[in-house]
């Protein structure tokens, strides 16, 4: 067959066919009606050697531009220690299957147990699953979990300050799952509390979805929200940016019932949108309503402490259409990214990351304001590493200008508002260079107007 993926020699094929009592490889398909067999050519290129593959992707890569990233909105450019990528490459982790055979999968099971432990430490919740696809689908799963828990309710409330990318996914799942999604308006960059109180008091919501920090980067004050939810028999679901959990008040401290979000900000490369990892943590009381895999501690026949996939009876392969979810995998390897990252960073490293991000973001906001053409859209609201800034300039033009100098200057929200993010990856020099580029644009505009 003459290809590195196929070890079969002509002699192998002949003797194996003999054993099967067949004369040719085609005979192995004699049960397929011949009119169903594909006999034409695929629209694919000829096989490429490794030399050609490398050349091909090098060339494709030149159609991308590496930008100095000042964008967030659910994906963050954070530092990851060199160790993380190295551990991920270990093929015992990379090329293993789902750890159903616990005797030869303790490596995977152990790190998932560590992942669950770390996510519960960060969120303050009692239990975590083994991870989900991403933050958006984890939020959609939490929505379905709340509806299943409430039994006879099929409505959830979602704040307009939740990242619209997440809301879009929640709404898609809701539409097909038969759940009504009602929005709670945003007011001055935060969820309108009066509207929340009015809507929750109707007593027909199974859950309420809010965000911390919210889409605009604002850290909202959710004092009293959990009580209002619980008084009305609804679950409080909080979507969080994982890295900020190192310093911000945790979902458990706010009284949330389910904490969800994306773990990308904990050591996973931006990688054009994936793979990332979702997390979903909740209370012990709700553990059997939780979707996805769970690893638990047990012992083997010799009494050794070991780990195993547990509570599998909730899952789709046993419960079929009655399962808590159709999910039958996790993002195991991405959970390993997060686990190794958090092992290295610890609480102190995570604090420093947040402090540096805070410093950089506030410095950039101040420098932009000093140009006289920018002001914070929500000036009195506390933010960590992301903020919305309003400008009297044309957002699209200024972004094109800064892209030409290899900056991704935030994300355009509308003609006058930009959502900007600064992480610990951005040095003062880079921030200054961005501000300089913006200033040059302002000069250019002024020159044109003169």
């Amino acid at each position, binding site marked *: 067959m003459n290809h590195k993926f196929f070890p079969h020699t002509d002699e192998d094929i002949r003797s194996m066919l003999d054993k099967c009592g067949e004369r040719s490889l085609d005979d192995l398909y004699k049960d397929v009606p011949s009119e169903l067999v594909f006999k034409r050519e695929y629209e694919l290129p000829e096989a490429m050697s490794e030399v050609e593959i490398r050349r091909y992707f090098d060339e494709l890569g030149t159609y991308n531009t590496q930008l100095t990233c000042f964008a967030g909105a659910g994906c963050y450019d954070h530092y990851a220690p060199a160790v993380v990528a190295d551990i991920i490459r270990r093929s015992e982790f990379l090329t293993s299957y789902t750890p159903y055979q616990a005797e030869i999968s303790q490596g995977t099971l152990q790190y998932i147990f560590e992942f669950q432990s770390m996510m519960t430490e960060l969120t303050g919740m009692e239990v975590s699953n083994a991870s989900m696809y991403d933050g958006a689908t984890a939020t959609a799963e939490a929505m379905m979990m709340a509806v299943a828990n409430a039994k006879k309710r099929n409505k959830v409330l979602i704040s307009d300050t939740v990242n619209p990318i997440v809301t879009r996914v929640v709404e898609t799942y809701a539409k097909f799952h038969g759940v009504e999604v009602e929005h709670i308006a945003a007011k001055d960059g935060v969820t309108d509390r009066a509207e929340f109180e009015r809507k929750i008091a109707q007593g027909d919501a199974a859950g309420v979805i809010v965000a911390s920090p919210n889409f605009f980067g604002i850290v909202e004050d959710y004092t009293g929200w959990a009580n209002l939810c619980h008084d009305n028999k609804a679950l409080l679901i909080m979507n969080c940016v994982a890295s900020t959990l190192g310093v911000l008040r945790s979902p458990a401290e706010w009284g949330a019932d389910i904490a969800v979000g994306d773990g990308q900000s904990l050591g996973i490369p931006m990688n054009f949108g994936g793979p990332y990892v979702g997390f979903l943590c909740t209370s012990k009381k709700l553990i*059997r309503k939780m979707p996805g895999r769970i690893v638990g501690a047990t012992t083997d026949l010799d009494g050794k402490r070991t780990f195993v996939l547990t509570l*599998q*009876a*909730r899952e789709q392969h*046993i*419960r079929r259409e*009655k399962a808590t979810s159709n999910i039958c995998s996790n993002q195991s390897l991405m959970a390993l990214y997060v686990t190794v990252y958090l092992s290295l960073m610890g609480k102190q490293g995570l604090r420093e990351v947040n402090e540096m991000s805070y410093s950089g973001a506030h410095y950039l906001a101040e420098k932009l304001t000093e140009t006289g053409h920018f002001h914070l859209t929500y000036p009195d609201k506390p933010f960590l590493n992301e903020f919305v800034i309003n400008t009297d300039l044309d957002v699209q033009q200024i972004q094109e200008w800064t892209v030409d100098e290899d900056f991704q200057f935030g994300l355009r929200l509308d003609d006058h508002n930009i959502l900007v993010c600064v992480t610990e990856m951005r040095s003062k020099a880079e921030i200054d260079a961005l501000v300089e580029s913006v200033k040059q644009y302002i000069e250019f505009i002024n020159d044109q107007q003169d």
Partner: protein
Amino acid sequence: MSKIIEGLYYSESHEYVKVEGDFGYVGITDYAQHALGNVVYVDMPEVDDEVTAEEEFGAVESVKAASDLISPVSGTVVEVNEALEDEPGLINKDAFENWIMKVQLSDKSELDNLMDAAAYKDFIKE
């Protein structure tokens, strides 16, 4: 051989009802607990819940299986067997002793739709 007790009513989904006056004690049969294996969790209704005959009222879970509990009778739940919360394995020890819920029966004529011990014995032989 699975144990079957005379005088109880049995459903095709392997629940039993033990009737005492206006009340019925509902649990799963010995045959059912055998089929499930080690029970690790019982999802029970709450007191004051209304249950309806032939509708789900909870679930039992073993390591490798989970099965919905179908109520053989209609009525109001007046008590649940809280001992099962801490020790679900009691069902394996004695499924008939360890009932799951006590129901105030709203329609005793429903019992006529259920099997007696002899009929159930035949049923599980099939």
